[in-house]
């Protein structure tokens, strides 16, 4: 309807209202599904972009670490762009004529709400564990991929606490269940911020994945497309070789269950604002990221497996 300001940060309620507006504006392409409920009872909504039945799917999620506000903002802008481009942009149109796209704008709604109301620096979920005075689990250390290995903490007070068991967090289990039950997800993109990286498996171990060459080529093409708009430079590589060993991450899990095209973006910036990117950078960040995401989506579309 044109009334929503994509260039501003918003509360969870506002984001959820915006999701409804996108669904209302583009009914023929987008629908909203509640795939679960967060620990504190908030709905977890995924947007389904679909133009036909029984299609393979591509998954995109954002904001698993709640304080990374530019990622949720980027995902919302991306949702609108994907819907808007269908029927106008040949690349998006041919993609959605073959694949469904599932977009989770707010992966960790409790954390997002908490970062808006109580602690701007909150990163984890808000689950309470008996016997601990500390709250929450790092949801990107909670997937069933090398769970409990290096690069995740066993200390419930740590910001990278892995949780008591893999998929102990309902926000993680909800997505994992959705991916498992769908059965035909062929691409998985997780959006984080910051530090300008495009990563692929593995993180829980420091060996290259079987499809290293292809993933590296696709990643470099995506980073190159992204940088064409504003010159933003990305580093591309495996999680372990590019940053550090980290166990229990989502894209390791998806890769190991057979989703070959598993990537994670770390959006802007490097060295000025960190997690507190000014709102004026939302639109440029979203626009450039979209070019990178599109490259990956096109590769998935053109290389069925």
């Amino acid at each position, binding site marked *: 309807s044109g009334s929503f300001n994509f260039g501003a940060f918003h509360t969870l309620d506002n984001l959820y209202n915006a999701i409804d507006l996108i669904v209302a504006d583009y009914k023929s392409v987008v629908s909203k599904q509640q795939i679960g409920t967060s620990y504190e009872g908030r709905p977890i909504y995924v947007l389904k972009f679909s133009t036909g039945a029984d299609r393979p799917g591509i998954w995109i999620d954002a904001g698993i670490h709640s304080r990374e506000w530019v990622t949720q903002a980027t995902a919302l802008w991306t949702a609108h762009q994907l819907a808007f481009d269908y029927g106008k942009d040949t690349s998006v149109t041919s993609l959605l004529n073959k694949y469904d796209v599932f977009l989770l704008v707010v992966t960790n709604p409790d954390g997002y709400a908490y970062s808006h109301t109580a602690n701007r620096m909150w990163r984890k979920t808000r689950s309470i564990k008996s016997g601990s005075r500390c709250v929450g689990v790092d949801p990107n250390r909670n997937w069933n991929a090398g769970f409990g290995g290096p690069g995740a903490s066993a200390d419930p007070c740590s910001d990278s606490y892995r949780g008591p068991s893999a998929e102990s967090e309902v926000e993680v289990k909800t997505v994992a269940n959705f991916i498992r039950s769908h059965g035909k997800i062929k691409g998985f993109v997780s959006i984080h911020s*910051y530090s300008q990286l495009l990563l692929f498996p593995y993180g829980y171990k420091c060996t290259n994945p079987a499809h290293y060459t292809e993933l590296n080529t696709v990643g470099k093409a995506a980073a190159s497309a992204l940088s064409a708009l504003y010159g933003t430079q990305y580093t591309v590589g495996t999680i372990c070789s590019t940053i550090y060993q980290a166990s229990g991450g989502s894209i390791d899990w998806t890769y190991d269950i057979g989703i070959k095209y598993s990537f994670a973006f770390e959006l802007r910036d490097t*060295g000025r604002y960190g997690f507190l990117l*000014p709102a004026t950078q939302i639109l440029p960040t979203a626009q450039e990221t979209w070019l990178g995401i599109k490259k990956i989506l096109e590769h998935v579309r053109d290389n069925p497996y």
Partner: protein
Amino acid sequence: EKTFVGEQVLRIKASSNEKMGLLQDLQSLTHLQLDFWTEPANPNIPVDVRIPFRSLQSVKAYLEYNNIDYTIMIEDLQVIINNEKEEMEFNERKERN
């Protein structure tokens, strides 16, 4: 609501694996309550760390004693958070109007 008055974010550049090891030692000092925005793992990637006001002097002394270069990335975190909040409120008022 938690406030961050006087908290700084430092950007630390470890020029060798040895200095990276010193930053990892710093990470293990949990009483300092440091929040590593980027982890000390790879000398090619700078380490950004949010430091509570009461730990600021100790951390800077540690870095200077060990000849580890750093710059102040965010001078006072609360100032940025306040600006962000004001901007959000302004946008909401504008949308309501």
